[in-house]
């Protein structure tokens, strides 16, 4: 069973991203959105990629671009419509905010 994790907070401010990574399942999917986009540059990203592959890591493009965050080439760029689709291809959604 796979879970969709919506990460909305910077890991430089809160522990939410670390807590998400702690309980992450191997088949789960992560979406970085809002201030969660800053986590693309956080060292926890390496920890995240110990559990999942970059193909399971998504970022809301407009949210990252608005914040002038460079998105690594191997991270999936998605928009809201894709997030809606992901909602229904996963069994449950957890919002980390």
């Amino acid at each position, binding site marked *: 069973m796979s879970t969709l994790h919506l990460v909305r907070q910077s890991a430089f401010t809160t522990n939410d991203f670390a807590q998400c990574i702690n309980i992450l399942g191997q088949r789960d999917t992560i979406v970085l959105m809002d201030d969660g986009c800053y986590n693309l540059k956080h060292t926890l990203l390496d920890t995240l990629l110990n559990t999942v592959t970059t193909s399971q890591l998504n970022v809301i493009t407009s*949210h990252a671009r608005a914040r002038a965050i460079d998105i690594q080439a191997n991270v999936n760029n998605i928009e809201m419509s894709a997030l809606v689709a992901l909602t229904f291809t996963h069994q449950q959604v957890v919002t980390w905010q």
Partner: protein
Amino acid sequence: MNTLAVVITTPPHSPLTATAINYVESALVAGINVIGVFFYQGGAMHANSNISIASDEYQAIEHWQQLAQQYQLPLHICITAAEKRGIACDAIDGEKLNGAFTVSGLGELVELSTKASRLVQF
């Protein structure tokens, strides 16, 4: 049929509210049956009709109203959360309550969660 319920705990003055509204709108455009939005905690402030946001800023409450009208989207406000925040929900003093919102209890959240195939929190 994919059914979606959304719980909003973010207040209307938070810039993060736009994300929630964009998400719900994308779901509606995609033909998802959004069976209701439940406003809890600071999210209850969305139903305060006295809120005035500068006209050049993002109008979160107006966006919810538009979605409610265009898609017959039910907007439920938690009565306890609303009253704590000065939004009177009774018939006499109800002028502080935005008419697009339905006053509900937490029982409505139970109802939404049993009916929805997905519950998403913003």
